[in-house]
């Protein structure tokens, strides 16, 4: 093993740091999205103004680079960790019932992560790319009209369906990820472990339910 190779615990620390940053980002992203729920006229102008504010601010720009780096690092480390794990058992069990003693989503973070990654690609293509590099009409205040684009996309039933399913995958990913990150970083006191469990559960279900609710609301009521 070469000097360059990171320790298993160091890699997991990077997974935890990047994962927790992405958790933090989700909260900010959700707060922005909640503006879509305002009455139509107000939501239209406010959401576009908010988007414009974000794209112009240097601080937001720096955070967005940290965000891109976090997503990439999280994926790269996940692949590196998975490859090491595959090597750690060269012969498989013929008859395997080990799944009985752990929860399914804790064993399938990679699958859930892949679903989320595919979702991100679609998400970036439909909104991020169009906003940054595509041509969008301007609203009456001269801001790019992201709101109309969002409403148009959410009017498609299949899109809302895929969106909601991806939020379910995200929920399970967070449910294990949040708690696992705390454990990786060394939260060992039983009292705080309990807090992390409860906060993680509220966070995961709350964030994902709210994210999933917005396209459903827009689809049926706008």
């Amino acid at each position, binding site marked *: 093993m070469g000097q360059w190779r990171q320790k298993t615990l160091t890699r997991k620390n990077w997974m935890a740091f990047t994962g927790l940053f992405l958790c933090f980002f989700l909260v900010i992203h959700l707060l922005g999205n909640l503006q879509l729920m305002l009455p139509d006229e107000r939501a239209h102008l406010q959401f576009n103004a908010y988007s414009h504010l974000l794209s112009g601010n240097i601080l937001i720009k720096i955070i967005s680079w940290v965000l891109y780096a976090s997503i990439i690092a999280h994926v790269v480390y996940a692949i590196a960790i998975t490859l090491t794990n595959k090597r*750690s058992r060269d012969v498989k069990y013929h*008859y395997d019932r080990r799944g009985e003693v*752990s929860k399914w989503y804790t064993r399938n973070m990679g699958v859930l992560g892949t679903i989320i990654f595919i979702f991100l690609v679609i998400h970036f293509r439909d909104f991020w790319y169009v906003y940054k590099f595509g041509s969008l009409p301007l609203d009456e205040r001269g801001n790019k009209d992201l709101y109309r684009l969002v409403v148009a996309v959410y009017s498609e039933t299949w899109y809302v369906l895929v969106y909601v399913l991806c939020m379910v995958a995200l929920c399970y990913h967070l449910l294990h990820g949040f708690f696992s990150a705390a454990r990786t970083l060394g939260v060992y006191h039983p009292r705080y472990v309990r807090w992390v469990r409860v906060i993680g559960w509220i966070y995961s279900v709350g964030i994902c339910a709210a994210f999933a609710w917005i396209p459903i609301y827009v689809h049926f009521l706008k």
Partner: protein
Amino acid sequence: MHIRLKIWRQENSHDTGKMQDYAIADVNPDMSFLEMLDMLNEQLLAQGQRVVEFDHDCREGICGQCGMMINGRAHGPLKNTTTCQLHMRSFREGDTIYIEPFRATAFPVKCDLKVDRSAFDRVIQAGGYVAVNTGQAPEANSIPVGHPVAEAAFDAAACIGCGACVAVCKNSSAALFTSAKITHLALLPQGAVEAQERVRRMVDQMDAEGFGHCSNTEACEAECPQQISVLHIARMNWEYNKAQLLKK
């Protein structure tokens, strides 16, 4: 009871090995699982065949020698039980039981159900001790240790090194084993002196042996015969991160 068995047979570490079928009659439900295997071996011996080799020693659940995958579970279908403490009453008449060795790259199969677990020994040799001059036993009361701390350290020290945590882990991680020893010594004043050096060296050795990452599925705790808590893994991570941050 009539029992059908599918057992992993492998001549030596170079052999590829395969699952082989056996049948055994008149199994007493009160027999331990190992006694059932003894019975099978007597049958094989009488037929002039090579016996099924497996590790065992105390047969009272405290040595950690016996260990095999039984019906796809480490130490069989019961939680927190060693193979020798599993009894045939946990199975039904006519059952087919799959028996395989613990699988991990770090635990190479030596023969049939016997695996080489010396990777664990090397992890302990890397730092699972306190360096003291030996001599007469020191006066026990000269270093005060509170009762709750002593109990917590003993809970961690209860690990018998059977390897079920590695066998059940989807990543073949040795985190539970390594962390139990690290926590045991980190809790006590005698171990605190070398705590940072110890955690670094033991984690390095754990990685060098080819064990995988811990992904906190907590399957290890469910299968551990000594119910070693997964919170020890969190403690190891804490000790490791602290040691890395304070490294000179």
